[in-house]
């Protein structure tokens, strides 16, 4: 293909996105678009399945049958999100095995928030309320992103996340209305999860390397700083409503800009966790690697069995 032909294709491609039309897997796309989507979508899929681990930590200890069932169902939803995000990524010409390999080797990232430990039952509430709350803010704009399979997957993901967020808030609210010990448990969870949740919305705009291109492809529609502000403005009144205190002495309503001013985040901690040195990075990856390696014989058996069945059908046909 000549340079002019490629340029023509690129122009048509850009025009299509500008018209808000979807790019489908078999459409021509610039290689960078393909690679960026593989990176972002797989990172999202990995976050879903690594995210199962901190919550899975509390299934066996959930305090009531109702909570146990709801927690199981929620984590199952996350596995489902992982499944269709991997499938959507596979349409870009990469296999699930390759994507896992990238996760296990550390080449691919996942949301750093899941490298924090879940220490009490209240953490199940905090994750739903804050972590899923921040995730929704990140994800709702993706329902209208340019790549069709991703946009469609996100419609369903967002519906379920929104349910998880309410469920998490309800857990925290129940604790906040409970005994002194329960209230303390809720406040402690908020103290530990607040700042990591704010960091989920990404580095400061000035330090974000992917934003401009992603805006053009509608992979991102608002800047990290705007999303963070939206999250804070939405969450602070919820905390106040249930009598919990946001652990930020600099948090203050700004009448002029009609939103909250807030304190500085500890970016050293953020980068430490992103670079693999958070409290649970090693455990999370090793849990995923173990599941994959210990399951190899099972997957091999399923393949061998399927092959045998296929051969039987062929033989019968002959």
């Amino acid at each position, binding site marked *: 293909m000549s340079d002019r032909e490629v340029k023509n294709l690129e122009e048509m491609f850009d025009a299509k996105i500008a018209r808000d039309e979807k790019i489908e897997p078999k459409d021509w796309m610039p290689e960078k678009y393909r690679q960026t989507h593989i990176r972002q979508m797989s990172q999202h899929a990995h976050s879903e*399945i690594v995210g199962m681990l901190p919550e*899975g930590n509390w*299934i066996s*200890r959930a305090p*009531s049958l109702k909570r146990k069932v709801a927690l199981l169902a929620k984590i199952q939803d996350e*596995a489902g999100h992982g499944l269709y995000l991997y499938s959507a990524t596979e349409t870009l010409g990469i296999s699930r095995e390759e994507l896992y390999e990238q996760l296990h080797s550390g080449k691919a990232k996942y949301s750093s928030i899941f490298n924090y430990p879940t220490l009490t039952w209240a953490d199940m509430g905090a994750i739903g309320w804050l972590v899923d709350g921040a995730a929704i803010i990140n994800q709702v704009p993706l329902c209208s992103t340019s790549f069709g399979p991703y946009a469609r997957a996100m419609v369903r993901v967002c519906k379920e996340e929104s349910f998880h967020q309410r469920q998490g808030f309800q857990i925290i609210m129940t604790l906040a209305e409970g005994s002194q010990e329960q209230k303390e448990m809720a406040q402690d969870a908020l103290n530990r999860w607040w700042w990591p949740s704010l960091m989920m919305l990404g580095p400061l705009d000035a330090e974000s390397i992917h934003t401009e291109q992603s805006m053009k492809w509608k992979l991102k529609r608002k800047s990290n700083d705007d999303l963070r502000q939206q999250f804070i403005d939405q969450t602070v009144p919820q905390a106040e409503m249930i009598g919990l205190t946001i652990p930020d002495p600099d948090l203050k309503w700004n009448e002029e800009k009609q939103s909250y001013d807030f304190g500085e985040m500890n970016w050293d901690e953020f980068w430490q966790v992103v670079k693999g040195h958070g409290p649970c990075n090693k455990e999370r990856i090793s849990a995923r690697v173990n599941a994959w390696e210990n399951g190899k014989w099972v997957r091999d058996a399923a393949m061998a069995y399927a092959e045998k069945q296929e051969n039987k059908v062929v033989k019968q046909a002959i």
Partner: protein
Amino acid sequence: MNNNLIQYIYGIADNSLILGQRLGELCGHGPSLETDIAMTNISLDLFGQVRSYFQYAAKLQGEDVTEDSIAFLRKEREYKNVLLVEQPNKDFAYQITRQFLFDIYHLLLLSELQNSKDETLAAIAKKSIKEVSYHTRFSSDWMKRLGDGTEESHNKVQTAINDLWEFTDELFHTTDADKVMISEGIGVDVSLLKELFYKKVNEILEEATLQTPDIKYFQKGGKQGIHSEHMGYLLAQMQYMQLAYPNMNW
């Protein structure tokens, strides 16, 4: 208050409770995303059934008894599940074999329980039977895949069936409470299901190219509340919150 009926309900529901708890431990650690989701789904179904049974048992007892006090606040001796379901998640071969043996039994039990004179139990059985049919299909299919898959999978699942076989006989024992409930047309006489159970299990094992174990000695005790060493640890986790923070709403 009909104590025999309550004990009878515990006898059935505790199997689902303890197996559901075991399956819940696996969430996020399965050999593939698909099997992970399926095992969690079975766990969810079982806990759903447990809630129906325990809500009924709580209603029969009145006072301060709730589904959660039944699930979380009994002593080990008061749990009446069979030994099979409390066996640990050693590997996928054990998990599937444990599931398979329980599912075949569970389906036969529910098929009869839906004819119970107790309308609530009959209704729970009718609802659960759809779920358990799926569980049985899932675990039977995996028995075949593992048995007739690779040499490694065949050996692993044969070891699992050999080890877990000694827990099958207890499924067909009847307690004193069971006997009273059977005589009243409420309970199922599980001793009558034994022959059909082994026939169905053997059929699948044969298709899976597995040997039916030739074992004459069996373990028992769970139905009387005398459990294995594994049970205390399982309960320690399951009851942790309720014991550490008693009398609270969650």
